[in-house]
């Protein structure tokens, strides 16, 4: 059975975020003052923080994950992380923990346990800044991801295979990415093929379609293309999605169409829960 390798420091897994930074990502999200790029950046930073938190123990951060972010837009496809994290695409999570661009202090209101509300300052690390300019070189981004992860799979034969979370709002401007995506999904470890999950971010106030099992109901060729590019959800991710109240089956693909802010959060949460940490 694939996708069952325990994730441990000797056999980490890889998570690669591939983020559309084209100019249309600067449009406002439906029912929001904020742009798609800002919301995606916020969710990505929060996801990285949560992943670091999952690996942080009293005696240090355990390297269960190698993590990278590829951004693509006006400057082509490139490493979207900065500082020492810009030297290589995939970095161990302890390096992610040690190298945020900055740590913001945000205020939050919490229950004081005695019927009142108090404000508390919490630290919010930032690694990834919102950007939106130029075209949508999706083929270049998928190729870069494949190049990076093929080498990673060679070096980690016993690991739970890498997961790619691809976030886009539009159509590729450098050709059809379908075959490249298929090529990416062919790379594997002994525990299974690379998982490619696609998220279509929308500025339309329309109902999202989450983890569909077929193309029926998808509105256009482009949505159908992203559906075909997406991996089948492995059994344990089907369970995670079901626990979140999603209607999914063993035929469901890792694809969300027309995602609003809440869908983006859920997509990241489901996509970053590979098997059991050991």
């Amino acid at each position, binding site marked *: 059975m694939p996708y069952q390798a325990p994730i441990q420091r*000797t056999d980490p897994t890889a998570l690669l975020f591939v983020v559309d930074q084209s100019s249309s990502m600067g449009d406002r999200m439906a029912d929001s003052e904020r742009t798609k790029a800002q919301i995606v950046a916020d969710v990505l930073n929060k996801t990285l923080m949560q992943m670091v938190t999952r690996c942080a*123990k009293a005696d240090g951060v355990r390297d269960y994950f190698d993590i990278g972010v590829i951004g693509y837009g006006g400057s082509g496809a490139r490493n979207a992380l900065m500082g020492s994290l810009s030297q290589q695409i995939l970095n161990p999570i302890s390096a992610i923990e040690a190298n945020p661009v900055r740590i913001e202090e945000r205020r939050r209101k919490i229950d004081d346990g005695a019927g009142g509300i108090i404000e508390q300052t919490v630290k919010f690390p930032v690694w990834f800044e919102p950007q939106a300019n130029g075209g949508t070189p999706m083929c270049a981004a998928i190729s870069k991801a494949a190049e990076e992860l093929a080498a990673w799979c060679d070096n980690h034969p016993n690991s739970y295979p890498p997961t790619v979370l691809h976030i886009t709002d539009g159509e590729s401007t450098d050709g059809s990415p379908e075959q490249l995506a298929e090529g990416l999904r062919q790379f594997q470890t002994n525990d299974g093929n690379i998982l490619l999950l696609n998220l279509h971010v929308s500025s339309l106030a329309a109902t999202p379609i989450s983890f569909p099992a077929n193309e029926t109901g998808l509105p256009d060729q482009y949505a159908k293309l992203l559906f075909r590019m997406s991996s089948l959800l492995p059994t344990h991710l089907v369970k995670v999605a079901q626990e979140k109240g999603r209607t999914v089956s063993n035929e469901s693909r890792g694809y969300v169409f027309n995602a609003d802010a809440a869908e983006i959060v859920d997509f990241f949460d489901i996509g970053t829960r590979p098997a059991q940490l050991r």
Partner: protein
Amino acid sequence: MRLRIDLAASVAKDLKRPDLNEDAYALGDARFALSDGASESYDSRTWARLLTEAYVLDQGVCVPWVADRVRTYLDSTDFASLSWSKQAAFERGSFATLLGLELAPNGTDAEVLAIGDSLAAHVRDGVILDSFPFQHAEQFDARPRLLSTLAAANDFVGESNFFTNSSITWPVRPNDQILLVTDAVGHWLLAHEEALTTLSVVSSNEEFGQLVADRRLDKTMRLDDSTILRIVVEGDELEQQA
């Protein structure tokens, strides 16, 4: 009758890093406790130790008992001095099972308390008479309810059916054995007929370590911290002979 510890052995999931073992146990004069600290926790090793050490001193697990342990845990950390990631992980909490055993005041019953997926097994003449909280290996696949350093996550301890669901009484006889094991060993014990015989002859931490390593290799035992307490029931006659 009385209970006597016959074997206490524990093996870390990473054989090269026994210091990272998050299982804990405590051996009292008349009580024994085992705890499995969850991997995705900030400091489940400390939490598991706190729970087991407290149980052998006072077995009366109830809402104030758990609250006292949470307070002790929270007081042991200087939150403000932690890095952002440790603060966030600390706030996420630590989680652990608690499996406790003692001889009842009547001297003829063994009382087991089980929170989470650590397993107790009552053995007589080489046969498992009963096990608790699970009877089948598949039951280990469910997500267990654990004691937490987050007070709100322990509300279940105050539910009216807590003791009914979490405890069992076994009438015992001299030479009976009670095994207390963490989940990887428990799953293996319930899934494989030969496991009980194999566990019965283990006599040291080294032998247990070899057994666990072999079973991991043939993939019959899950990779996890693995701990066993083997307790023997001794009768008054045996006591006098000794």
